[in-house]
């Protein structure tokens, strides 16, 4: 390795004193390999790529200081745990007081009274909790049923999927890939070609108008376009997005 490079790396290592020797070696190996692959030999070539050893060290250490701040967050979480431990010791203290009362012969009837009151209070709390849970479950079941009924009443629904780039459904009409320009007149034509009823047609046009992709006059590069009038499914896809409209539930 060129002398200049060796010198540069030695200076860099001297500035990484706050890292473990393992981490230092890792940095050294990376940049020694890097500079050899880059084919640089003189000091000025090295510095024009990586900056001075001080600048490079600052960049390497900046990344480690992010880690340090994450450690601090963990430490503050630990403090919350400590507080929980303190709360537990408070509970222990209450039990010790109850035991102290119970162990004294003079106060046994009093202790029994206290214990019974406590038991009553616990039962009352459990009762209220049970009632609340049953109430929530009941409302939840009604809500789920309402949502189900609501979905069944929707004439059709549009699914926009940003992950897919290709429609995979089998189809009996395939129009293939191509460029496409949307406008409202087209959409009206489509709904009649698709054989949609009025509710689905209205929904389809409304859904298409509210997706980020539908823009009047904009030309899209479609990677796939499929129409299945048997399954009543319409699929169109661009490189980054898929629309799917099902109107089979009508």
């Amino acid at each position, binding site marked *: 390795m060129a002398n200049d490079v060796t010198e540069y790396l030695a200076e860099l290592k001297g500035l990484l004193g706050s890292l473990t020797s393992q981490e230092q070696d*890792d*940095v050294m*190996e*990376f*940049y020694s*390999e*890097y500079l*050899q*692959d*880059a084919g640089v030999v003189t000091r000025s070539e090295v510095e024009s*790529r*990586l*900056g001075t050893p001080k*600048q*490079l060290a600052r*960049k*390497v250490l*900046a*990344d480690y200081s992010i880690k340090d701040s994450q450690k601090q967050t963990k430490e503050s979480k630990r403090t919350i745990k400590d507080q929980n431990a303190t709360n537990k010791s408070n509970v222990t203290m209450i039990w010790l007081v109850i035991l102290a009362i119970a162990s004294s012969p003079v106060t046994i009837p009093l202790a029994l009274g206290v214990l019974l009151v406590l038991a009553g209070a616990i039962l009352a709390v459990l009762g209220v909790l049970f009632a609340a849970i049953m109430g929530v479950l009941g409302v939840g079941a009604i809500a789920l049923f309402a949502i189900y009924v609501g979905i069944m009443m929707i004439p059709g629904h549009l699914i926009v999927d*940003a*992950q897919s780039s290709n429609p995979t459904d089998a189809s009996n009409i395939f*129009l*293939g890939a*191509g*460029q*496409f*320009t949307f406008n409202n007149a*087209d959409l009206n*034509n*489509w709904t009649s070609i698709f054989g949609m009823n009025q509710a689905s047609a209205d929904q389809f046009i409304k859904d298409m108008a509210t997706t*980020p*992709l539908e*823009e009047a*006059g*904009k*030309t899209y590069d*479609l990677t796939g*376009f499929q129409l299945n009038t048997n399954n009543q499914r319409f699929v169109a896809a661009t490189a*980054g*997005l898929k629309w799917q409209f099902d109107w089979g539930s009508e």
Partner: protein
Amino acid sequence: MKIQVNSELLDGLVLSLLTREDYYGYAITQEIQKSINISDSTMYPVLKRLKKNDWLTTYDHPYQGRNRRYYQITPAGTEHLQELLGAWRKYKLNIDAIFDQTQIPPLTLGGAD
């Protein structure tokens, strides 16, 4: 004007590159620099972060009497890349939704219907 590339995008670009083949450190920087303007000192922290998250592994391969460290994407890395790709495509569409309505007459080619 320069558009800043954040660390998650850099993660995505490097992981995407590694789906083609395994690269060594200098070659990764070279490839990324073909598309975006990053400094030579950018890549080390990126590769270290990707390795720490087990999104890539490394192995050494002898080259002209020394070692080159190659970087290889892991299954977890592929999964993470897919998340990043999805997020990026959504982001790109949202940005384009505004840019594409710039008041310059759009070029309209023939429809497929």
